[in-house]
């Protein structure tokens, strides 16, 4: 199943909350999908549909009740303790809705954190930080603290932190959720650039059709199950956006 071209492979994934003798709630039921290397995949669903739970399973922040999650050849469900932490630090890049920047550190130090955790030499680190800052055009913000940055700038710094260590996959949990429309568009363009230029796989969780329209493929999730799938193919973004809206209209009925 796992070939060199598959980055994420999810098999029969289930998540049940609550203990066996209590009232149980099944957040995810039999989820199967895979993400190919360099793919830009979106996961859409209303709130409560289980999309964040799914992302938490993929990023090892939560453990599944059943099923396998294989990311870049590592079986995530078999990992324990430090392995999990190291996996998150090395294989996954994260962008959160609320930025998750450490306000006691400058932008530069925030971006360098994943490299510092790996124990990268400081010269290599400086170079990597400046490279990624150039790409995301935040080179002039490096010495500032998060409190001095706008929302859009913060999210770009967070994006820089997510990709500075070249993870095998970039995961975004509603990364545009706290941004104004201009900043949101900028960030999504940026993610597209990262996806195309660095051939980095991107997995975006969102409920916003506009954000989703930047993806190549969208999985619709409802009540813990994947309901349908939409591929962008060769159509342009605007057309895809319309298609998503239509799909949502029927999907949510």
């Amino acid at each position, binding site marked *: 199943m796992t070939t060199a071209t598959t980055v994420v492979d999810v098999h029969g994934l289930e998540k049940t909350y609550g203990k066996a003798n209590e009232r149980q709630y099944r957040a995810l039921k039999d989820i199967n999908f895979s993400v190919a290397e360099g793919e830009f995949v979106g996961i859409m669903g209303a709130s409560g549909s289980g999309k964040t739970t799914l992302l*938490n399973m993929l*990023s090892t*922040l*939560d*453990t599944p009740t059943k099923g396998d999650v294989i990311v870049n050849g590592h079986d995530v469900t078999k990992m324990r*303790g*430090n392995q999990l*932490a*190291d*996996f*998150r*630090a*090395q294989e*996954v890049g*994260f962008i*959160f809705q609320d930025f*998750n*920047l*450490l*306000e*006691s*550190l*400058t932008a530069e*130090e925030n971006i*360098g*954190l*994943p*490299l*510092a*955790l790996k*124990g*990268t*030499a*400081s010269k290599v*680190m400086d170079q990597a930080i400046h490279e990624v800052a150039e790409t995301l055009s935040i080179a002039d913000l490096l010495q500032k*603290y*998060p*409190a001095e940055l706008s929302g859009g700038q913060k999210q770009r710094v967070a994006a820089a*932190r997510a990709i500075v260590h070249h993870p095998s996959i970039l995961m975004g949990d509603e990364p545009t959720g706290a941004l104004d429309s201009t900043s949101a568009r900028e960030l999504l363009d940026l993610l597209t650039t990262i996806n195309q230029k660095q051939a980095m796989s991107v997995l975006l969780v969102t409920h916003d059709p506009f954000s989703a329209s930047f993806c190549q493929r969208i999985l619709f999730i409802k009540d813990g199950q994947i309901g349908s799938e939409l591929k962008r193919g060769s159509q342009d973004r605007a057309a895809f956006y319309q298609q998503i809206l239509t799909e949502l209209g029927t999907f949510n009925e």
Partner: protein
Amino acid sequence: MLGKLALAGIKNRRRDYLVLLAGLTMSAAIFYMFANLATNRAFIKANAVVSQASLIFGFGAVLLILITVVYIMYANSFLLSMRQHDYGLFMMLGATRKRVGELVFLETLILGTIATAIGIVLGLLMSKFLVGFLLNMLGLHLAHLTAAYVPAIIATAVLYVGLFILASLFNLVRLTRTTVLNLLHSDEQANQPKVKPFRQLIQGTLGIVFLAIGYWALAAIKVLQVMAIPVALVTITLGTYLLFRATILVIIRGLRHTAWAKKHLNGFLLGQLNFRVHNYTRMLTIVSLLFAMALGAITVGSGYHKQLPMMAKTIGTYTIAVHDKTPVEQKLMDQLHVAYTATYTQKRQGKMVYYNADEIAKQPVEQQRYKKSGQPEAQLYTQSLKDFKKSGTQDMDFMALALGKIGAYTPKILSAEQFAKQTGKTVTVTTIRVKDLQQDKKPLKQLNKLENKRFAAPDGMTVGSYQGFEMMNGFFGGLEFMGYFLGIAFLAMLASCLMFKILSGAPGDQRRYRMLYKVGVRQNLMRWGIAKEIGILFLIPGIMGVIDVLFGLQMFKPLMSAPMSPYLGIGSTFLIFIGLYVIYYLITLALYWRIVLPKTTTD
């Protein structure tokens, strides 16, 4: 309904509340113990032989009140930091400010009253058992010491409840002035302190100058008299504050640009410290002073404890002299750790006492020589029989071996044959010099009592340095006890202050460590990071405090004149003190870990 909600909120965090309550209770108990000593006039009158003692008590009381105020301030901010979010939530749910205000006021006051009540009871018990234990350990006896003393109970209750009313009012104002949104998102906004080189240079220089003045004032206590203490207090406080302000930030800034800062969590650690230390400057200053006072008090206390025997040693060449020992006395003497002993036969007739030259040749009499300065020499010496006959018989300690109603008999040394023929009342006397007076305190005390009963000299005096030791113990014992007591009380309070200040920052840190967790930082790395961060916050006032003490001990030089010195044997005292401080650090760390570290899976 709101009351129920508030109770539920407290239940959820009962462990944190327990810590808070325990800390406040301890503080009230310690204050009661002190107030019990300080306000008990009969006790002070009976024990304050030294004029400084009442001054020390007064000073101690003022200091303890100040510390208590600071302590309650920090404990209160810890309480508020725990509850802010809940209060915000209540307001968002539609509770009026007035209603929430009442809740805050009541909650603080109830907590405070409970803590005070338990604290006084605990203080009573501690006064009864702990103080007794401490006195017993030190071998001291203080008259008129009772566990329950009504004025002390009133003083403690009034001070604590008064302070808690103030704290409740403060919380009320704080809460009604902040908006609901700020309460809900009460996470600390990082305000990054700016480094201004010129201003910092001036601050640093001023700080050092103030410290120098303070240290000089302590050393020059003979010139400045009592003024030395307030002068030193003000200048050292200012100096420490300015020095902290000027240096800590610069050092952290400097470190942030090194390669070291780019390894693992070091950068995060420095970032945390950077935006913390600024807020902490004042607290670190206070804590470093408290640390110095606590350590100083204990050092002085143990100084007296260790040095009284030394001082006593210079009073006589032997520890005790036993005349015509009984079997009971022999048993007691067998328990002593003897450094030198000699037994002489005396024949007393008229105003004369005769000694056998053979015995003195075999067991020469130890004598004390004095330096030109009047200081006794460290080593005792003995003379040959010939020399001893010439000058040694004039030795005071030797003469004191034969005391009668008329005073000392005049000693004369006879050859063995002459001595055998000499008539008179025969008495044997055994002199003993022990290795360590403290070690043999118990048998010595009994021996002294027995000697006193049988051969009381004019004023119920016996001979030997033990008698002097007992007298001095009564004289300086109060000081010694105060030293230990204040030291332990200060340490308990200062460490709790630091603990609560640090813990009140913990809820804000929760979020940060959660982020680190998500980014993939190992649990161990986070633990270490926290240990380092809190360790540094404990270390800074610790180092400054030790320096303060090393200089501050100068103050006691006039009181502890040679061969005593306030610096003698401070190593072991420092070690014990630092040990206790480390225990506080570990408790704080464990609590911090519990609050801050994320659970391994998401909720």
